[in-house]
């Protein structure tokens, strides 16, 4: 009897435990409201009036307040540089442009003290120094961190060196230093500084002008905001000499895993078609290298890294731009809140935010989020708002085939079982997330890659390769190409069996119709014969068709398997796989949508009442399609009412095979009930759904969607970036010529960092004079511990106060960690 009771009790406990497994979102409700004043937004988090303020704060005082009183996330997506006018040595009016000389530009690296700028203008917290076109928090930098560190030291502030080099070059140009002022043909050498006053670039511009004045130039400061400055530096002719230096700024909103083409973009004609870029003339060797990097002209990852290391060096020698700072933005949140934040895009840019958002001390609850500006443009999944603060709730209610890692940019599978990538031999295609490989925290790889002989990836005759908008049928590869055609790559994607258990927010189950309509729309909007033709699609469609060869569905039950043939291959097989896996997923540029709501917009656009894109809406003088409010929504609801009566199936000649009248009827009824309950038609499929939208008051309320059955903890590993803490220890002093071991401890939150998650640990050895005398790899010992083995030969030339700098690169976070250890070496 006692045994039975115990067993029953255990069973009840087990059931209770099972019942407590949270699915979907951790929180019950997320309330977004608009708060344009940043200081007030932060204050509201401090007083509990909001839980998160989603704007990235860069004001040093506010950051200090956040760090002292709140929890926070950090992003590194924007950066500042100094752009030089390359024309010269003189402009047509005879004025000298010293920055036409590469050595003068190179010397500008020594003239400016990046550390001073960070301390003085960023309060020591809102920025980090930057020397290269690659971002210090992105994977490429991490892989090259040792090379970068050495170059950064070589190009750190050295006023005397800068002055000496510039003096020498100025004299070569025929200028004279008279009474401490540079003169050219009797006139002062004027440097026109075009300075952006909106942010810290004002101080940076002023600082650079001050430094130039210190070495004898006459700096003229011209403060112009973005709109006024663009026609001068960006689209204007640099030969007019309206500016010599410009304080540039750039933003990256996603972690870019491949920045190898950034040198070509920033330093060569290949970057942009505007006159400034077309005025760039490079050293042939540098140009070839950068151009090859842009074309992915290398065989292996190692070769690419070697080329990039060289590109870094060339970039500093060329210095048509000198990179100065990387802004660090802080996102204020309550200490009791956990949420994923993208290293580039911050909280609002993290695709995983709604899957990781939670209170640390409880399950459920309402999170209130302040947003600097929202509901500024219509929402439609095809070509609606692209406003970053609106995309945050839109992504929060959407489910995707893959989701980007906020710390490395790698795509992780959400609705993909596996992807097999086939690539022609000779094409550089690297693989990181190898199928079955353990990445820790429950993350496993999902991609395989096979290299095949050139010409062996033949597109099947019956693959869908184009679209006939009149007949509303796919054009097969045979019809499009006329005969057998090969592609450079093929990706076979498998959606899991559970894919058809996915439920839209109105209760409709996902079907093949949702998948195929999306693929049809990739073509139909770009076809002049289509009633929804949009000329804004011409350029992107042309690009798409240049590489797309065909798609074939191999299996539709129980799992969906399809293959995509294309000539486009990303540098990493993981990215190629992710791109192709999305071809049938009902996600569009600006959100997800089921076929039965998309069709309403299609009907409205075909009737000339609305248009999905702003470009077409303006051209036709109609409203931009909006699924959440206004007259536009009324029009969509009108079509819904009609369709309820007719069970309308869009693109019937094709979709009629996949959608039955019964399904159509059920779908329209579901959408109608949803609209009547919630007052909008934003029907998505993610862990949260849109409960309330108040466009006038700028409020959006999202609620947990019970039909989303993934475990809530599925993405918890991304709630916090695993940025390693590094400590180096060893003897405080030793004799030169003796072998020494230095211990490197690597932890995250005081726990040892898993070896499997570390990419490398490198060290740079400095002698007493600060010169680099050696570099090497530390050796792994166990989780959280590496050892640097300095041989007797390595320590032999050392004397005095020496040090090692250690660079730790992780596989799970793009941001490398640094540490240094000083020691005395005696003879």
């Amino acid at each position: 009897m006692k045994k039975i009771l115990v067993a029953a009790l255990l069973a009840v406990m087990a059931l209770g435990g099972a019942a407590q497994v949270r699915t979907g979102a951790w929180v019950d409700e997320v309330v977004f409201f608009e708060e344009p004043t940043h200081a007030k937004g932060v204050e509201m988090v401090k007083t509990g009036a909001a839980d998160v303020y989603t704007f990235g704060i860069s004001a040093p005082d506010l950051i200090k307040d956040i760090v002292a009183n709140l929890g926070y996330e950090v992003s590194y997506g924007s950066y500042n540089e100094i752009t030089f006018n390359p024309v010269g040595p003189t402009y047509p009016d005879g004025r000298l442009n010293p920055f036409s000389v590469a050595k003068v530009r190179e010397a500008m690296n020594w003239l400016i003290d990046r550390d001073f700028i960070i301390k003085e203008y960023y309060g020591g917290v809102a920025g980090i120094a930057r020397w290269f076109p690659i971002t210090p928090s992105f994977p490429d930098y991490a892989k090259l961190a040792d090379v970068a560190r050495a170059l950064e030291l070589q190009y750190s502030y050295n006023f005397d060196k800068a002055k000496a080099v510039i003096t020498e070059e100025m004299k070569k140009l025929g200028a004279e230093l008279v009474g401490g002022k540079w003169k050219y043909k009797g006139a002062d050498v004027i440097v026109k500084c075009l300075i952006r006053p909106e942010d810290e670039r004002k101080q940076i511009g002023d600082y650079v002008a001050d430094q130039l004045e210190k070495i004898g130039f006459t700096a003229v400061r011209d403060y112009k905001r973005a709109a006024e400055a663009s026609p001068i530096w960006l689209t204007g002719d640099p030969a007019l000499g309206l500016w010599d230096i410009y304080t540039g700024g750039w933003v990256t909103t996603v972690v870019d895993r491949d920045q190898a083409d950034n040198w070509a973009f920033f330093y060569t004609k290949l970057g942009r078609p505007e006159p400034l870029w077309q005025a760039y003339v490079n050293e042939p060797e540098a140009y070839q290298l950068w151009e090859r990097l842009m074309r992915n002209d290398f065989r292996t990852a190692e070769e690419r890294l070697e080329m990039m290391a060289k590109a870094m060096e060339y970039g500093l020698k060329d210095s048509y731009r000198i990179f100065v700072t990387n802004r660090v933005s802080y996102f204020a949140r309550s200490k009791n809140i956990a949420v994923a934040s993208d290293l580039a895009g911050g909280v609002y840019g993290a695709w995983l935010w709604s899957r990781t958002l939670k209170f640390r001390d409880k399950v459920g609850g309402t999170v209130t989020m302040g947003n600097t500006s929202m509901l500024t443009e219509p929402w439609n999944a095809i070509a609606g708002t692209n406003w970053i603060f609106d995309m945050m709730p839109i992504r929060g209610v959407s489910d995707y085939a893959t989701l980007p890692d906020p710390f490395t940019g790698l795509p992780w599978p959400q609705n993909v079982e596996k992807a097999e990538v086939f690539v022609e031999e000779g094409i550089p295609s690297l693989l990181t997330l190898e199928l079955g490989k353990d990445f820790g925290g429950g993350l496993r790889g999902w991609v395989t890659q096979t290299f095949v002989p050139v010409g062996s990836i033949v597109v099947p005759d019956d693959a869908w390769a184009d679209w006939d908008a009149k007949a509303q049928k796919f054009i097969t590869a045979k019809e499009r190409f006329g005969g057998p055609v090969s592609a450079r790559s093929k990706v076979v994607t498998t959606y899991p069996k559970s894919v058809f258990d996915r439920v839209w927010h109105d209760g409709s189950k996902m079907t093949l119709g949702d998948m195929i309509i999306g693929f049809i729309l990739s073509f139909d909007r770009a076809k002049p014969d289509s009633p929804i033709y949009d000329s804004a699609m011409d350029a992107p469609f042309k690009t798409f068709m240049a590489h797309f060869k065909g798609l074939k569905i191999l299996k539709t039950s129980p799992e969906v398997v399809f293959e995509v043939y294309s000539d486009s291959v990303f540098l990493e097989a993981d990215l190629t796989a992710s791109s192709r896996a999305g071809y049938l997923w009902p996600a569009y540029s600006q959100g997800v949508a089921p076929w039965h709501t998309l069709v309403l917009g299609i009907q409205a656009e075909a009737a000339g009442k609305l248009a999905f894109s702003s470009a077409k809406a303006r051209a036709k003088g109609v409203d931009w399609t909006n699924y959440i409010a206004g007259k536009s929504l009324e029009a969509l609801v009108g079509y819904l009412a009609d369709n309820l009566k007719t069970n309308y199936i869009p693109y019937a000649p094709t979709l009629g095979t996949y959608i039955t009248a019964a399904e159509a009827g059920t779908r329209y009824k579901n959408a109608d009930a949803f609209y009547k309950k919630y007052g909008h038609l934003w029907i998505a499929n993610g862990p949260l759904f849109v409960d309330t939208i108040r466009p006038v008051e700028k409020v959006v309320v999202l609620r947990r969607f019970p039909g989303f059955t993934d475990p809530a903890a599925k993405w918890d590993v991304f709630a916090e970036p695993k940025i390693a803490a590094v400590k180096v220890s060893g003897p405080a002093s030793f004799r030169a010529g003796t072998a020494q071991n230095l211990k490197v401890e690597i932890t995250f939150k005081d726990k040892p960092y898993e070896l499997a998650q570390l990419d490398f640990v490198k060290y740079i050895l400095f002698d007493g004079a600060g010169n680099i005398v050696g570099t090497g790899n530390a050796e792994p010992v166990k989780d959280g511990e590496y050892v640097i083995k300095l041989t007797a030969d390595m320590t032999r030339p050392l004397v005095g106060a020496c040090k090692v700098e250690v660079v730790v690169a992780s596989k799970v976070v793009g941001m490398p960690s640094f540490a240094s250890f000083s020691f005395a070496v005696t003879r």
Partner: protein
Amino acid sequence: MENLKRIGKYTVIRGVLIVLTVSIGVYLTVIIATMGGYMDKIQDAQIKEAVGLALQGNEEIRRLPQSEYKKIYDMMVEERRKEFGLDKPWIERSLKYLRNAVTLNLGRSERIVSFSGSGEVRRILIEAIPNTLVLILTSNLILFFTALFTALYLSRHYGSPLDRVVVAFSPTSAAPAWFYGIFLILIFASLLRVLPYGGMIDPNLPPGAWAYFKSLLKHLILPVMAWFLGSIFLSTFYWRTFFLISSSEDYVEMAKAKGVPPRAIERRYVLRPTLPPVITSFSLMLIGSWTGAIIFETVFSWNGLGRLMYRAIQATDAPVIVGSTVIYAYLLGITVFLLDLLYAALDPRVKTGAGARRMA
């Protein structure tokens, strides 16, 4: 009959003058909003910058050979130029803006959309007006009548402690209302936590009109208070001085000497002659509400016409700027016109036409 004729002629001339004035004002606005055509250059640069960045973000496009990249870039730039009408000369577009504005065909915006997502300028303005009216008009009405009646009281109690307080505090109106707003937010929202920081309603408001109304009222307290504090002392001081001057007119002194009761003096000899300026001030205050208040609305996160204009200026959306200005211009013109008529009715000293010239 002759009077009617004269009034009719006067009305027509005034009407034509108003339309002419509005047209000039609107065209000046068009020139300013588009920087005399230089805005085209700016927009062109912005388009190129945006297209370049968009292409840079596309892995499959950014690595194309330069000639192919350039083709796509040019196509996209041209498409965007057409979208914003930059394929047509500025002068043509500026005259179109003027024609549309004068005929009150406000057309469609270039970038901004209404709260509900419409691109019609009319709708953009219509959706923002109620918010501004609720906030600015309420504040103005409370301010106006409080100042007026307090001033009347003070004019009767010249030199009283309250009068001295008002005079002493009148320089405080030098600070704008949003300045007081920040302090009020700090005290009542941040420190005491009894009133909201801003916005129009509580974000997680339960459904229902009553809940909405209560929340709206709660959110109005601080901004109305800030608006009131920002101007009350100076407004009261102004009206009180005005009434004091009116109270010392000879005919008022005569009435006092005749023993007319103070209430009757106030009503007949002070208020009636001062009515035209009071009505003028009141009317212009009403019209002034149209423009909203950019910083004030921003401080209180209130989506009215002020913030709309700020967005329009930032986005260089000429149709919205022109649309808002033309409505204001027409309202002002019509108000001035009506005031002219009202003056004639209220004040026997005001004459029209030849009679007026004779009097002069």
